[in-house]
């Protein structure tokens, strides 16, 4: 494909503005399904936290507050670099886009590394579902641990998918397929990445910040 030619407008669209609205509408529809996908786990969390407030407070204290706080800062920063990449490609700045996507991906890897160290610590404490639990862990505390792994695990899977999509974006960009006129893949991926960031913004207080009674 000639890299200098912008992709032509498909017949379904009257103009670029309509295409842009369709892109956003489709992506937000997908995000609405994601809200309900994660929502099931949030509902389970709410029900069991109402039922077992003391066990959830104890479970929260098995997690390291600073690790959760640092990870929140890491993800918020990765959202900034992604938003900057989007602004750059809209001005045709391909090298700047590459740097921003690379920075976003690096912060994503850092987040997963910190999360992995936390999983490792849970393993050392015998608090991993499927393996023999610490005998001192009550069934309600085990419920908290199940929810911790299900919620952070589903979130981590979304991060991994995001890293794969960023590799694809970098490849598109390397081939010159992203331009000021054709920036939709960057913008749509940005919506996905920011949404995954938002999920963590809610996981942080719910998992790490439960006060001891």
């Amino acid at each position: 494909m000639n890299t200098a030619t912008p992709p032509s407008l498909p017949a379904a669209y009257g103009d670029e503005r309509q295409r842009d609205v369709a892109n956003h509408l489709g992506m937000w529809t997908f995000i609405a399904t994601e809200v309900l996908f994660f929502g099931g786990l949030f509902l389970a969390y709410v029900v069991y936290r109402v039922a077992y407030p003391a066990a959830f407070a104890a479970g929260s204290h098995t997690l390291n507050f600073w690790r959760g706080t640092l990870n929140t800062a890491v993800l918020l920063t990765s959202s900034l670099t992604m938003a900057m990449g989007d602004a750059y490609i809209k001005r045709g700045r391909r090298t700047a886009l590459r740097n921003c996507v690379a920075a976003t991906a690096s912060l994503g890897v850092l987040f997963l590394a910190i999360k992995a160290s936390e999983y490792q610590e849970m393993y050392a404490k015998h608090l991993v579902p499927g393996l023999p639990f610490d005998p001192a862990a009550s069934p309600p505390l085990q419920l908290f641990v199940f929810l911790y792994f299900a919620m952070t695990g589903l979130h981590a899977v979304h991060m991994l998918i995001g890293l794969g999509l960023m590799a694809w974006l970098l490849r598109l960009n390397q081939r010159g397929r992203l331009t000021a006129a054709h920036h939709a893949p960057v913008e749509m991926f940005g919506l996905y990445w920011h949404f995954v960031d938002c999920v963590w913004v809610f996981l942080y207080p719910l998992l790490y910040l439960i006060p001891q009674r």
Partner: protein
Amino acid sequence: MNAEDPAFRPLFATYAALIVLLALTAAATALPTGWWSTPIGLAVAVAKASLIFVVFMRLRSQSPLVRTFALVGFFFLAIMIALTLADYVTRLVPV
């Protein structure tokens, strides 16, 4: 173009606000807020997510149709949680 481009100002301002909100949440855990700490933590999370939605995810410049689609998932999630809790909180005895 450089980082002084006007398009970047709202991004940096939003990021600064997000980090300030994170610092506030973290600092609030040192205070004896007791029962209030969860509502405070969730309120800050809603504020952070709103900033991300409006600025980073560009809802600011979207049509009412797109904004409706962005919020409808949360609307149904709220119904799901509210109706489920209406049952559980009236029957379950916390332990």
